[in-house]
């Protein structure tokens, strides 16, 4: 039983990382109607920036994280300004390929600017807490709390504010949204900025348990995509719950079934779910009308 | 079902709590032009969607006299099987393929007739070539008939609304159907175009010896064209009769037409 609790706690920690990344992907999906494959690379890049700042100036990890997220906001804005906003005539699939190009740019620039060695980003807090025979680090608790709080704020903003409504309108029909007075360009820009910041936070939450390196976000990126699918691109909370579920399932499978085949089994499970619920667990099914 | 081509019996379908079609029955004679009218949201399009099996009705039967003369219940058939039985439709929100040319769009109407194997198509063998030119020729004839021959090789994207409506109609004519169902064919046409459409539809009926079921809100068009009209409201039958009977029907006036005041 303690093992089970322990696995649950471990999964909460990584699940939060996947969830933040997934949120960023969905946000962009909703405004730019594209799957952002570069989410991970942008996050990796900003995480390097934050770490370099931390190393050079010796500020606290939290300050460095804030600096990193501010950088990320800027990167998001720049990416939108130079690329995405100019891609309005581009269809969704081609936009995906644009994000592929972005991967190459960020992945290519990173070693030139930051060197090729993996870097260390410290924990926000050290120490751990034990209960019922299971341990959880304070850092994990910190991650979980901050992650959930941020997600809560974002949910509120998306569901209850005008900004949220404009995000959804932009995704639904960009042209008409503009006709109704929505500055869709700014909405999209803000989404890219926020998505980059969310991704960076997830990267910096991951960094202490791994390291800051070029491929640090590869797994997160794929898992986050899977979470979006499993939760359904139509809802924000769906992806978040799915991210936690995937984190948990992956650890359970790996512990109780097989660490070799856990991913494959997980893929099959996800496939099975979307087969029965083609719009994701939380996606609404709408009968098409002609 | 001696002289009937279509018989809708006790048709019902609900979306969530909303009964879009409610125990509706009507039938259409061979060679008849039959109108289906009703307020917005009355369930007309839904009836079409049930007939062509886009929606699976909750209750009721839809009997259809197919090309071969047999009577079949369409309920439970696959959507793509319907056209092969001799029943073809157009859509309220035009469903044409923007990247194809006008003539190609129309050729798609004869899809089920095309009988060359995949291998044959891969290497464009004789059979494929024959079928292609035969069907293209037929499409061009129809276009010619509708006065659209000059735009046959243009892309559909960017054509005005009225033209799109006509292309959709043309596509429905590729197979010599027994029953054509048209959802608001005159929407977006101006008065003179509407008038010419009346003539086109009359001709189609005469030449092809088929029946036509249509939805339209333009009452001049409906009255000028239909042999009989069925009026529905809230998915339920209001009245069936000749155009004069329907126009005079008080319930129809209240629900749909409005009183003649100006």
């Amino acid at each position, binding site marked *: 039983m303690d093992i089970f609790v322990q696995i649950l706690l471990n999964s909460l920690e990584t699940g939060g990382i996947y969830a933040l990344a997934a949120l960023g992907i969905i946000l962009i999906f909703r405004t730019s109607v594209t799957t952002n494959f570069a989410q991970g690379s942008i996050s990796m890049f900003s995480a390097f920036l934050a770490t370099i700042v931390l190393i050079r100036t010796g500020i606290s990890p939290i300050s460095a994280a804030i600096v990193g997220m501010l950088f990320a906001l800027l990167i998001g804005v720049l990416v939108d300004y130079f690329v995405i906003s100019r891609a309005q005539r581009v269809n969704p*699939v081609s936009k995906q390929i644009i994000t592929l190009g972005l991967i*190459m740019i960020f992945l290519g620039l990173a070693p030139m600017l930051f060197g090729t060695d993996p870097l260390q980003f410290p924990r926000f807090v050290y120490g751990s807490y034990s209960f019922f025979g299971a341990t959880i680090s304070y850092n994990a608790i910190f991650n979980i709390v901050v992650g959930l709080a941020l997600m809560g704020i974002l949910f509120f903003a998306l569901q209850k504010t005008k900004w949220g409504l404009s995000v959804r309108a932009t995704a639904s029909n960009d042209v008409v949204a503009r006709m109704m007075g929505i500055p869709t360009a700014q909405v999209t820009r803000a989404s890219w900025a926020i998505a980059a910041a969310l991704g960076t936070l997830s990267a910096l939450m991951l960094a202490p348990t791994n390291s800051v390196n070029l491929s640090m976000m590869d797994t997160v990126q794929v898992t986050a995509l899977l979470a979006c699918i499993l939760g359904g691109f139509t809802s924000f909370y769906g992806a978040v719950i799915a991210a936690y579920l995937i984190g948990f399932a992956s650890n359970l499978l790996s512990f109780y079934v097989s660490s070799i085949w856990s991913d494959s089994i997980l893929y099959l499970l996800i496939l099975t779910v979307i087969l029965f619920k083609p719009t994701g667990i939380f996606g609404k099914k709408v009968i098409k009308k002609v | 079902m001696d002289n009937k081509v279509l018989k809708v019996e006790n048709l019902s379908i609900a979306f969530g709590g909303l009964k879009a079609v409610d125990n509706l029955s009507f039938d259409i004679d061979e060679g008849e032009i039959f109108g289906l009218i009703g307020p917005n949201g009355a369930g007309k399009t839904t009836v079409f969607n049930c007939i062509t099996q886009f929606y699976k009705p909750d209750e009721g039967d839809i009997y259809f006299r197919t090309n071969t003369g047999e009577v079949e219940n369409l309920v439970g058939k696959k959507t793509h099987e319907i*056209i092969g039985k001799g029943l073809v439709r157009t859509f309220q929100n035009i469903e044409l393929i923007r990247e194809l040319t006008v003539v190609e769009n129309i050729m798609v109407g004869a899809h089920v007739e095309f009988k060359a194997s995949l291998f044959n198509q891969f290497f464009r063998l004789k059979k494929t070539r024959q079928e292609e030119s035969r069907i293209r020729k037929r499409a061009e004839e129809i276009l010619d008939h509708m006065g659209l021959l000059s735009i046959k090789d243009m892309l559909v994207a960017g054509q005005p609304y009225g033209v799109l409506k006509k292309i959709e109609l043309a596509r429905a004519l590729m197979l010599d159907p027994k029953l054509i169902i048209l959802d608001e064919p005159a929407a977006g046409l101006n008065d003179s175009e509407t008038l010419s459409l009346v003539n086109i539809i009359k001709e189609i009926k005469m030449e092809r010896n088929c029946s036509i079921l249509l939805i339209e809100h333009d009452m001049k068009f409906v009255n000028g064209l239909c042999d009989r009209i069925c009026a529905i409201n809230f998915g339920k039958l209001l009245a069936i009769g000749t155009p004069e009977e329907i126009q005079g029907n008080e319930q129809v006036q209240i629900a749909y037409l409005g009183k003649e005041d100006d």
Partner: protein
Amino acid sequence: MNSKLMNFYKSHKPYSQFLLFGIILSLLPLLVNLGLVKYSLLTTVASILIYSIVALGLNLLLGYSGLISLGTAGFMGMGTYLTAFITADLGLPFELALIISVAVPMLIGVLTGLVSLRIEGYYLAIATLAISEILRKVFVEFDFVTNGFSGKQAQYPKLLGFLQLDRNGTYILIVFFLILVMVMMHNLVNSHTGRALSTMRGSEAAASAMGINIYRHRLLSFAIAVSFSALGGVLYMHFVKYTYPNAWILMLSLNILAVIVIGGVRSISGTILGAFIVFGVPDLILKRLPIIGSIDGAAYIFNGLLIILVILFYPNGLINMRFDIQRNFRKLFKRGEDLNG
């Protein structure tokens, strides 16, 4: 005589164009032997052609059926392993290996398609990605056949049991298959199946109302795409003579997608142009440019930049550049006329 040939060429377009293209490509080994071009150029060109074959299949799927697959790499990899196993381990003839190595992935493709093609859009993309990753896992773990991470080897093909091809011969074989695939694609999309696929992509409602069995046509285009991937894999295996699990990753599938988007969706020549941009330009041009070529990783960045720029300026594919060129040409021509007149 000359004009007769010209007439034949014109009246048999585009087959004559394909043929001409094939002939030109087949001259490359000659040029290499004459020392006019670099020896290694042949390998780069061969790889472009192999990826073109794969991309043509995906173009059918994406361009005509509107379905996205991110599983290309997995099926291509499967083609490599199967043919290596059949020819190298079992010692069976190349022709048999070719047939089986295309048929088995196609069958698996159809089987996965049977379940996954009920879902759409991004869901299908991720479903195929998952399948591809599972396949890769199989390449890794079933090392008694695949040799795991050490990779597996095979030889140049031996045709009809006696005609042992060398590097040049295998290259010509690749050219042959590319031209064949181009002709087949061209014919298919310009026949009723092609129209049916387009209709299905444009409007499922219209498609099913016109009697098009959507599910069956999806399956069909998926099967074709998978078999082209596998065919590409077979040719890859016998040309590169080596396969390795990590060659068949998501990035390759995305690159193949990039080929189509960059070259031109629904365009055969665009696909080949796209393959050249994605798989040729970095090695043939970018890495040889003065400054870019000499800084580690700069070519990689510029490749990313190039992809983005091409899509921004030619959102419907670089192949549309020819219209611009034509237009400018005509303008020039017109101006000339004005001056004359």
